[in-house]
């Protein structure tokens, strides 16, 4: 197997095997959308590289042209060509069927994880000073109300977490609360999953509406405790003195 086209095919198969079967040995499996994206980039790379020169283009596209026109395709190659012409439309048909056939599986979704907060919550600042006492109180409140789901280690692995899909947020991940301002957390804790706006559909959050049980002061202190416990800092526009 040599020639640019064969090398590209080997590269694509190798990449697919790595993404689909080898990578999941070390981490969670990748969704099909991401595998498709990475394979498309791999194919584009090969095509760009091999078509930079005239010779490369001929070597890359030549076999495709010969295959389609049938020139010099005799014997096993000719039979294989006919087989591909028969099997390829069947493959496309099967793909179309599996995508369109009724299924009990919900479609892939592009849920908005961080919808924009309502205007009244924008720009709110934590009215309580960041003192060791307040942080300690916040952590205590967190342990009582939040840790069953979000975990004692702020990693989203509380004892009740297994019951939720999607799972509770992992605050130690730099992609969660570290990206947000305190006012955002105040809104999400206070209003809970039912308070999410239309743009966050489908509403898949089991977060309780804590405003019915906790006073604002406790919520602000919980936020303080969360950031401190998770080793993160809230997004601000002013540097701390």
């Amino acid at each position, binding site marked *: 197997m040599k020639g640019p086209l064969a090398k590209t095919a080997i590269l694509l198969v190798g990449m697919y095997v790595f993404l689909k079967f080898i*990578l999941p040995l*070390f*981490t*969670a*499996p*990748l*969704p*099909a*959308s*991401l595998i498709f*994206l*990475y394979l498309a*980039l*791999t194919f*584009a*790379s090969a095509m*760009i*590289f091999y*078509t*930079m*020169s*005239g010779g490369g*283009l001929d070597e890359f596209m030549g076999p495709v042209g010969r295959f389609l026109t049938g020139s010099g395709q005799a014997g096993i190659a000719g039979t294989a060509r006919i087989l591909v012409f028969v099997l390829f439309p069947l493959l496309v048909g099967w793909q179309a069927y599996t995508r369109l056939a009724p299924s009990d*599986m*919900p*479609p*892939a*979704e*592009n*849920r*908005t*994880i*961080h*919808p*924009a*907060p*309502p*205007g009244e919550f*924008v*720009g709110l600042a934590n009215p309580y000073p960041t003192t060791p006492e307040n942080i300690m109180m916040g952590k205590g409140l967190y342990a009582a109300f939040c840790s069953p789901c979000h975990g004692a280690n702020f990693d989203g692995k509380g004892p009740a977490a297994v019951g939720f*899909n*999607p*799972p509770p947020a992992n605050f130690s*991940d*730099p*992609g969660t609360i*570290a*990206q947000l*301002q305190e*006012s*955002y957390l105040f809104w999400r804790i206070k209003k809970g999953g039912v308070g999410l706006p239309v*743009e966050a559909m489908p509403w898949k959050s089991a977060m309780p509406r804590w405003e019915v049980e906790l006073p604002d002061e406790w919520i602000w202190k919980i936020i303080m405790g969360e950031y401190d416990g998770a080793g993160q*800092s*809230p*997004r*601000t*526009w*002013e*540097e701390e003195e």
Partner: protein
Amino acid sequence: MKRFNDGSYMKNHGIIENLKSLVPTVKPSSLFGWSVFWALVLLPALVWAQDAATQAMSVEYRDIPGVGSRNVVWVVAQQHLLLAGFVLGVPIFAWVCEIVGWKTKEARYDKLAKEFTKLLTSAYATTALFGGILLFLLIGLYPKLMAYLSDIFFPSFIVYCLLFLLETVTLYLYWYGWDAMQGNKKTFHLFLGFLLNVFALGIMIVPNAWATFQASPVVVAEGTAIDRAWAATWNPTWWPVNIHRLIANVVLGGFICGAYAGIRYLLAASQEEREHYDWMGYVGNFIGVFGMLPLPFAGYWLMREIYQYNQQMGITLMGGFLAWLFILQAMLIGVLFLGANYYFWMGITYRIPGSERGYRRPILAMLIVLMVCLGVWMTPHSLVASLEEARKMGGTHHPLLGVFGVMSAKMTVANLMILVTFMSFVMYWRAGKQETAGWAKIAKSVMGALLVLAGIAVIVLGVWGYFVPAIIRINYFSVAQVLIVLFIMVTFTPLTAILMKSAKTTTEMVWGKMPIRAGYALVSNAVMVILLMSLMGYARSSSRVHWHIYGVMRDTSDYAYSPALGYAAAFMSLNTFVFCLLVAFIFWVATMGDKGKKTPDQQQPEPAKIPAGVTPALAGGSPREQD
């Protein structure tokens, strides 16, 4: 029906005759009585007319049935903006090209500058036409909003009109005086080019104030009309948008001129034409890439200002329902970077015979870096996953690849892609030449070491960015990454220029030998940049959600909702398609005269002579004709 001399008809002739017959012949004494009679009859009509006028004044919106007012304004505004981007971007590099031609005495640069300006003149009228249509549509369809904006910005309307007049006069003088102002009048012509750009800048920044005011308004209730207009103009996103658009216009203009050259190259009938348009395509791509390198920095600054101005708007754009547009943006920018690099690499392969083998490995390395970076940039924070896939991942964030979804990763790969593209250009510049300076080896080693260090520093800062507060990352780490890349660009460019000045040409650059796919690559780059501007223009405008003027004037029309992303994407594609058609038409009209002028003995253009020893001013050189 009565026919007038000009051939028109007086359709109401019969009605008037009938009305006349209703009025009996009266004596002067009874005139008063008839007046009272008609006054009584017409009084209710006057009241109705007044009611109608009051009603018209209170109309907030008008609609275009079937199509929708918002859709019409969307298309017309986008066409106007894209045309304006081209018209304001081209004079910048046309003028620079003219200066280069004047300084180096190379007539080819002057010819190129003139050709750019020719495209400009034909596009200018169309831009103004779409501006006029847009204005009428806005006044008619959004009267309340326009009344409010007019009330605030009226003084700047006057400034805008004045600038428009000056721009038009200067453009006419600049274009029509091109040939007449050669020789000792050239400096005056260059001064006109300078003025043209100054007025163009003014024409861009004044309406930018109106548009940015809608997103980040500053409303002052007291003071004179000028005070209020000035306060509204100096809103938080005005200068970030000004800078971003200024650079983007150069990119748009460069790539569109490149596409024009690409098409002319594909249609070229003679070797001379192929050489000229191959070179013009190279210059267009060079200008596009030159602008594209600092563009992400300007975009980052704009987004930072938006986020700082209003958290809600920032989240809507970067984390909310518009966040998917930024994944599309990554894809388009990626294709643009790849297209520009692909064109450079093809240039090395085809224009410098025999160099393919020597540059294959570095090109492969650059390609891999670009693709890995693009893969990271395009990886969303929340992945598109089925329920089963999400279950296996433990949510829509992948535990390993989820880290690619945040800004620290995006900024890092964007900087690396800029660095690679810059090095791609430097490699093209140096291809086919042998440095002769004694210190060349040391300089190349230092440059290599600096490049590696810069790459490492950008990555280290990117990774470190995950472990510091957001404000430290935004204010220091991201800025440091940008400065590192800029440092490489501002040190490597003069250093390479000095090295190349004394370099010996080992392989002469051959123009007009590029394959047809090079022409298509240039066209693809132009389409990508148009799509990109349509996409991000929509994102910026849509971030106001249901507000005409954010937080000040709410949109209460039937269209006070954000369209689905698929619907919006279809409109962006439509806008791109319409703009490409418009540009194709404008260019066709602009070049129609050239064909007519050609006489049989003028079919082959006179090759420009380059004096011996003159180094091509633009990196990569220009076609050198044989004496």
